C-alpha cells in the first residue's frame, strides 16, 4: 500500500499559514456554505434525550428532531451566522433500518431549506450513518445485514438531502478496546495502522463511489472509537494521559486513508487529530473543544480551536435548559465562538495568528494531549509521518515521534507531567522499540496470539 511516490510534502508547510478558517483545499457545499475560505463555520449536532426507538415512538422521535432543528435554525437566523453546518449522526436503529435514517435526514434538510428560502440562512447538512458493523463480534466488515444497511443508507444520502457524507468508522476497534484498557500500545498500533487502515481503504472506496456524480460530498472520518475513547478514559483517570496523547497521534495515518481514497473534508468534528489531517492533506477540518464539553470533557478545550475550519458542539441531547433547549444553546455558543475567530480573520492575518497563539498557549503546557495539538508540534510530527509509505509504518512513526516530542518537552519543562505519567512515557517508549519493521511480521504475531480470536482476517483483506 504505497502512499506517495514523489518526495512527499506537507500541504501546509509553515506556521504562518496554519490558521483557523483557511485551508489549501476549501470545500463548498449545500446552500453555498464555504469551508476553509476565511470564515469558521459552526457545526451543530444534536441527539434525542432518553427514549426507546421503535415503531410506536417513531412519530414522537420525528417531532423531537423537528423541534431541535427549528430551534437551531431560528437562533442561527437571529444571530445572523454567516453559514451553518448541521450534522445528523444516526442512532444505531436508524442505520439498521436505513429508511428511518433517511427520513430524519430529509426532515432536517427540508427545514434547513425552508430557513434558506425564508431568511436566507446559508446551510449544509452532514449525514453520518452510525457504523453498526461492530454490532456482532467478531464483526463482519464487508458483508452481512449490518453492512447492507449501512451501504443502503449511504446510497440514499444524495436523495434525502445530505450535502456531506461522513462516518466514524470502527474497523479495528474490536481489537483496540481492550488494548486501551491494558495500556498495550503494540496492539493499538496494530488496530490503527493495520486493521483500521485496511478497513478504511475498503469502506471509503465504497463511500466515494456512492457519492460520485451526486451533489453529496464524501467528507471525512474520525478515530473517535480509538483516540476519543482513550481521551475519555484518561479524563476519568483510568489510563495515562501520555498514552492517550500517543494514541491520538497514532490515529492520524488511519484518518489519512479517507482523504487518499477521495474524501474532501471537512474532517469529522470529534477527530481531535484534525490538525494533522489539515497539515498533511490540506482539507478543511471540523474541530470541537470547550463548547463540546456537553459531550466530552477534555484538556484541549482551547487548543482544539487553533486551526479549525468548522467548530462543533459534538452532540447534545434535547434537554430543556433554563433558557431554551440544549441544541439551541449550543448553536448560540458556537455562533459566538466563530464570531470571535472571524472578526480576527477579517482584521488581519496577524490578529488571527495572535488569537490562535493565545488559544494554543492556554492549554499546551499543562497536558500531553494538548501539547501534541500545538500547531508547531503538528507540523514537526507530520513531516515525519509523510516520510513513511504505508499506513502501518506511518502509524509506528507517528507513535514514535509523539513519544519523542513528549519526552523532549518534559525534559525541557515545556510540558508539566506527574511522576506516574513520566513512568508510563518511559514504559511506552520501550514498548515501541520492539515493534517490527514489517507489517507482515506484526500481522503474523497477532494472528498467533489471543488477539486473533477478536477479528476475522478476511474482513480486512488479510489472508493467513
Amino acid at each position: 500500500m504505497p502512499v506517495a511516490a514523489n518526495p512527499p510534502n506537507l500541504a501546509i508547510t509553515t506556521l504562518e499559514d496554519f490558521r483557523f478558517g483557511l485551508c489549501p483545499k476549501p470545500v463548498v457545499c449545500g446552500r453555498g456554505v464555504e469551508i476553509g475560505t476565511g470564515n469558521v463555520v459552526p457545526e451543530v449536532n444534536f441527539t434525542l434525550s432518553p427514549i426507546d426507538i421503535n415503531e410506536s415512538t417513531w412519530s414522537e422521535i420525528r417531532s423531537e428532531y423537528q423541534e431541535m432543528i427549528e430551534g437551531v435554525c431560528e437562533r442561527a437566523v437571529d444571530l445572523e451566522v454567516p453559514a451553518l453546518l448541521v450534522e445528523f449522526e444516526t442512532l444505531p436503529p436508524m442505520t439498521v433500518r436505513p429508511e428511518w435514517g433517511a427520513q430524519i435526514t430529509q426532515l432536517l434538510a427540508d427545514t434547513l431549506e425552508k430557513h434558506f428560502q425564508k431568511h436566507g440562512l446559508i446551510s449544509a447538512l452532514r449525514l453520518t450513518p452510525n457504523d453498526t458493523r461492530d454490532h456482532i463480534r467478531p464483526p463482519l466488515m464487508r458483508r452481512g445485514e449490518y453492512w447492507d444497511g449501512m451501504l443502503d443508507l449511504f446510497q440514499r444520502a444524495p436523495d434525502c438531502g445530505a450535502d456531506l457524507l461522513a462516518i466514524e468508522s470502527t474497523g479495528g476497534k474490536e481489537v483496540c478496546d481492550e488494548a486501551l484498557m491494558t495500556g498495550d500500545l503494540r496492539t493499538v498500533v496494530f488496530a490503527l495502522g493495520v486493521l483500521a487502515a485496511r478497513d478504511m481503504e475498503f469502506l471509503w472506496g465504497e463511500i466515494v463511489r456512492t457519492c460520485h456524480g451526486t451533489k453529496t460530498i464524501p467528507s471525512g472520518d474520525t478515530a473517535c472509537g480509538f483516540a476519543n475513547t482513550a481521551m475519555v478514559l484518561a479524563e476519568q483517570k483510568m489510563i495515562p494521559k501520555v498514552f492517550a496523547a500517543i494514541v491520538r497521534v497514532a490515529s492520524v495515518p488511519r484518518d489519512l486513508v479517507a482523504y487518499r481514497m477521495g474524501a474532501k473534508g471537512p474532517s469529522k468534528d470529534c477527530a481531535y487529530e484534525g490538525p494533522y489531517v489539515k497539515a498533511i492533506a490540506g482539507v478543511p477540518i471540523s474541530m470541537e473543544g470547550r463548547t463540546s464539553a456537553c459531550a466530552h470533557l477534555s484538556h484541549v478545550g482551547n487548543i482544539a480551536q487553533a486551526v479549525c475550519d468548522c467548530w462543533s458542539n459534538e452532540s447534545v441531547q434535547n434537554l430543556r435548559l433554563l433558557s431554551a433547549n440544549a441544541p439551541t444553546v449550543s448553536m448560540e455558543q458556537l455562533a459566538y465562538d466563530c464570531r470571535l475567530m472571524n472578526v480576527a480573520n477579517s482584521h488581519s492575518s496577524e490578529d488571527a495568528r495572535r488569537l490562535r497563539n493565545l488559544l494554543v498557549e492556554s492549554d499546551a503546557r499543562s497536558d500531553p494531549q494538548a501539547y501534541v495539538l500545538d500547531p508547531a508540534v503538528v507540523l514537526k510530527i507530520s513531516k515525519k509521518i509523510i516520510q513513511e509509505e504505508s499506513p502501518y509504518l506511518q502509524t509506528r512513526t507517528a507513535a514514535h515521534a509523539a513519544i519523542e516530542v513528549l519526552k523532549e518537552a518534559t525534559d525541557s519543562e515545556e510540558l508539566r507531567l506527574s511522576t506516574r505519567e513520566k513512568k508510563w512515557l518511559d514504559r511506552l517508549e520501550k514498548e515501541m522499540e520492539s515493534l517490527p519493521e514489517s507489517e507482515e511480521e506484526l500481522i503474523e504475531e497477532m494472528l498467533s496470539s489471543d488477539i486473533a480470536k477478536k477479528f476475522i482476517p478476511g474482513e480486512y483483506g488479510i489472508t493467513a
Partner: protein
Amino acid sequence: MADMQQLYDAVLNGDANLARSVTEKAIEDGFPPKDLLDSYMIPAMDEVGRLFEEDEYFVPELLISARAMKSALEILRPLLAEGGVEPVGKVAIGTVKGDLHDIGKNLVAAMLEGGGFEVIDLGVDVGPEKFIAAVKEKGVQVVAMSALLTTTMPSMKTTLQEIQAAGIRDQVKVMVGGAPVTERYASEIGADAYSDNASAAVTIARSFVNG
C-alpha cells in the same frame, strides 16, 4: 516456607507468575487455601482498589493485578470447592439490549473477579431473558447492567420489569451503571444500587452478598 507477603506483593504488582508460584508453594507447605485468599489475595486487591481510587494506579495496573489474582485463584478454586468454600458471590454482568459498549462493563467484571466474585459475563446487547436465565439457572445473587447510550437506558427498565414478571426479583440484587445513568434514574426504575465507578461497584456487590 512460602513467604506470604510475596503473595500479597505479587497481586499488588500484578506479577501473575510469582502469584502462581507462591500459591503453589504455600499449598505444598500446607497453608489453608481460604487463609491465602482472605488474608493475602483479597487484601492485596483491596489495596489495588485503594491505589486506583487515590489516583496512584491506572486501570492497566489494576487489570494486571486482577489477572495475577485470577491466575492464583485458578489454583485455589478447586481446593476451596473441595473444602466447601464458596466464592464470595456470583454476579451476572452485561451491557443491556441494543448497546454494544463493553469497556466499562469489562472493567467492572475484572474488578469483581479481583474481589473474589465468580463473574458470569453475558457480553453486550444482552436481552432480559439472558439476565433472567443467569439468575434461574446459575444462581447468581447480583445482576449488574451497563448502558452507555441514552437510547439504550430504557432497556434497563425493561429488564427490571421482566425480572419482576419472572417472579425472581427477590432472589437477586440489581445494580446499574454507565455514563448516562444517574442515581435518580436507578431509583426511579427500582434498581437496588447505582455505581459510577468500578471499585465502588465491588464494594456494593460485597454489601449485597454480606447483607
